[in-house]
């Protein structure tokens, strides 16, 4: 008879330090991370192959780290130095696997009841029924997983993991295959459930919109290392490192030098070396802690740049740069424009904008870039 779930302390934070390497094959991969997950949603954000699933497997106990320890509240789940490891079945870690892994031979109700073997039949039925109700799948209780829709399957998988009252919840891209509307509804249900339970939820995704919708905190992982962490807005909109910038979709990334620092205005001027080598572009950017003359990178989203066909005046934007239109390319319902102003900058426009401005290759144009549209990264 399994022991009941450990009582939940007020501060049920997950602390993990995990190192694991996979020798062999084409390239060696090693995971080496240390992080804490407070109650609430924490997003684990990173490209595929960055070690996210391995990390979750280690927390759930399906994989064993080479070194490190994993603690939830006061409960040690795994400590490699003392060779201590709680078996998977006794960790009370809820884990929704990437492809859900619903039991195909059991009904929805039996799937949800699966993790409640240790309690009485009556209580099991009641708890499962309440959970089915909460996740709006009560009407499917007699169906088998292959008879219901993808969104319903996701709900069953969530309900099956949550009904066990886990002390940590791991979600491996649970909504990846769903359309936006279904996704939003499930996210709402999940959020409501979490308001009542407040356990650490580690949520793996590589979707930006899920990060923004769910995240209280984001861990950015790449090639086995956590490269940034913080509030979603801070991590994703003012990334510190270029890898994050690429994830977050910056079309323009330039090497630059800090040219002038305007402490009083809270801005600085950066110099972007151009082609030919004596040309350059000066950009006014937000102030960061950087020495005059130090090398940094500037990222600008193509959608954040305004384009004008006469020199604009009377604008609040600090950067108005003259240039020549190099190419116009239609990509779906959007126009990708490349403008040479010493450096080449990509700008995204609507079809209507192109037509009303009468843009053609070779046109003289001005680009308008707000100071806070310039994102700085360490180099």
């Amino acid at each position: 008879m399994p022991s009941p779930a450990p009582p939940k302390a007020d501060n049920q934070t997950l602390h993990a330090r995990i190192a694991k390497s996979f020798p062999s094959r084409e390239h060696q991969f090693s995971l080496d991370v240390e992080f804490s997950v407070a109650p609430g949603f924490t997003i684990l954000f990173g490209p595929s192959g960055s070690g996210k699933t391995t990390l979750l497997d280690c927390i759930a106990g399906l994989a064993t780290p080479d070194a490190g320890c994993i603690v939830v509240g006061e409960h040690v789940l795994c400590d490699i130095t003392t060779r201590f490891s709680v078996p998977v079945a006794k960790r009370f870690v809820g884990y929704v696997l990437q492809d859900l892994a619903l039991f195909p031979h059991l009904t929805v109700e039996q799937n949800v009841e699966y993790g409640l073997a240790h309690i009485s039949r009556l209580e099991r039925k009641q708890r499962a029924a309440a959970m089915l109700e909460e996740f709006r799948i009560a009407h499917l209780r007699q169906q088998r997983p292959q008879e219901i829709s993808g969104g319903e399957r996701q709900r069953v998988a969530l309900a099956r993991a949550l009904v066990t009252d886990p002390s940590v919840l791991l979600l491996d891209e649970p909504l990846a295959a769903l359309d936006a509307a279904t996704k939003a509804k499930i996210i709402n249900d999940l959020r409501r459930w979490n308001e009542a339970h407040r356990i650490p939820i580690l949520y793996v995704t590589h979707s930006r919109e899920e990060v923004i919708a769910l995240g209280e905190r984001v861990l950015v992982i790449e090639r086995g290392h956590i490269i940034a962490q913080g509030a979603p807005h801070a991590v994703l909109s003012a990334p510190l490192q270029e890898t994050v910038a690429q994830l977050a979709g910056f079309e323009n990334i330039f090497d630059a030098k800090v040219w002038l620092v305007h402490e009083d205005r809270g801005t600085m001027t950066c110099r972007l070396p151009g082609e030919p080598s004596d040309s350059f572009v000066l950009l006014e950017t937000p102030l960061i802690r950087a020495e005059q003359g130090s090398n940094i990178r500037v990222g600008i989203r193509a959608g954040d740049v305004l384009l004008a066909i006469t020199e604009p005046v009377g604008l609040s934007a600090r950067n108005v740069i003259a240039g020549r239109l190099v190419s116009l390319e239609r990509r779906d319902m959007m126009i990708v424009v490349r403008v040479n102003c010493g450096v080449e900058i990509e700008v995204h426009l609507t079809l209507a904008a192109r037509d009303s401005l009468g843009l053609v290759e070779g046109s003289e144009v001005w680009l308008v870039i707000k100071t806070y549209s310039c994102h700085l990264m360490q180099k």
Partner: protein
Amino acid sequence: MSIDWQSFRLTIELAVVVSAILLIVGLPLASWLAFSRWRWKFFVEAIVALPIVLPPTVLGFYVLVALGSRSPLGQWWQSLTGHTLAFTFTGLVIGSVLYSLPFAVQPFTSSFSSVDRKLLAASATLGGSPLRTFFRVVIPLSVPGLVTGMVLAFAHTMGEFGVVLMIGGNIPGVTRTVSIDIYDQVQASNYAAANATALVLLVLCFAMLATVYGLNRRTSGVWTVGPVK
């Protein structure tokens, strides 16, 4: 036309007992073969598969030696029961279990191996012990393989000849199985009786295999069979 129904009854009795033992022995052995990561596992796999390629007389010979009154096993049995294992029904069961082992264990193993490992992981994270995972997830999802293994073991035991001859000899009602009976009839130039007996055996084996393949076709794809708790 005289069919020796006594030998039929004996053969079916033997096949039932052997299949039952193979189910009990085969499940843990097959699950070990399917899930163990021991580096020398292939060694055990080879031993289990041996009866497929080994001439029945070779297997029968060694089993006979092992059961005989000069072997430790034979002596132990004799001290326990007062008679040897050779030329008894029990001896026949032991030989047949060894001989039919791969026919049960291999289908078991391959169906266990084909159960999605993600389901095993899911069961574990939901608090399922290895035993619970085995009985609630692995076994229900392996029903076609289990049925195949049982029927193959049953049919194979029904049809064995060499091992029976080596271990059991030809004692009516004790070790005289159908295939021995047919052999005897042919030796005695009694072709009509041999034909009748052989035909019954042929039809029986065909019916069993057809049932298995039919069942497997129905259960593959959408899941219809499954224990309801």
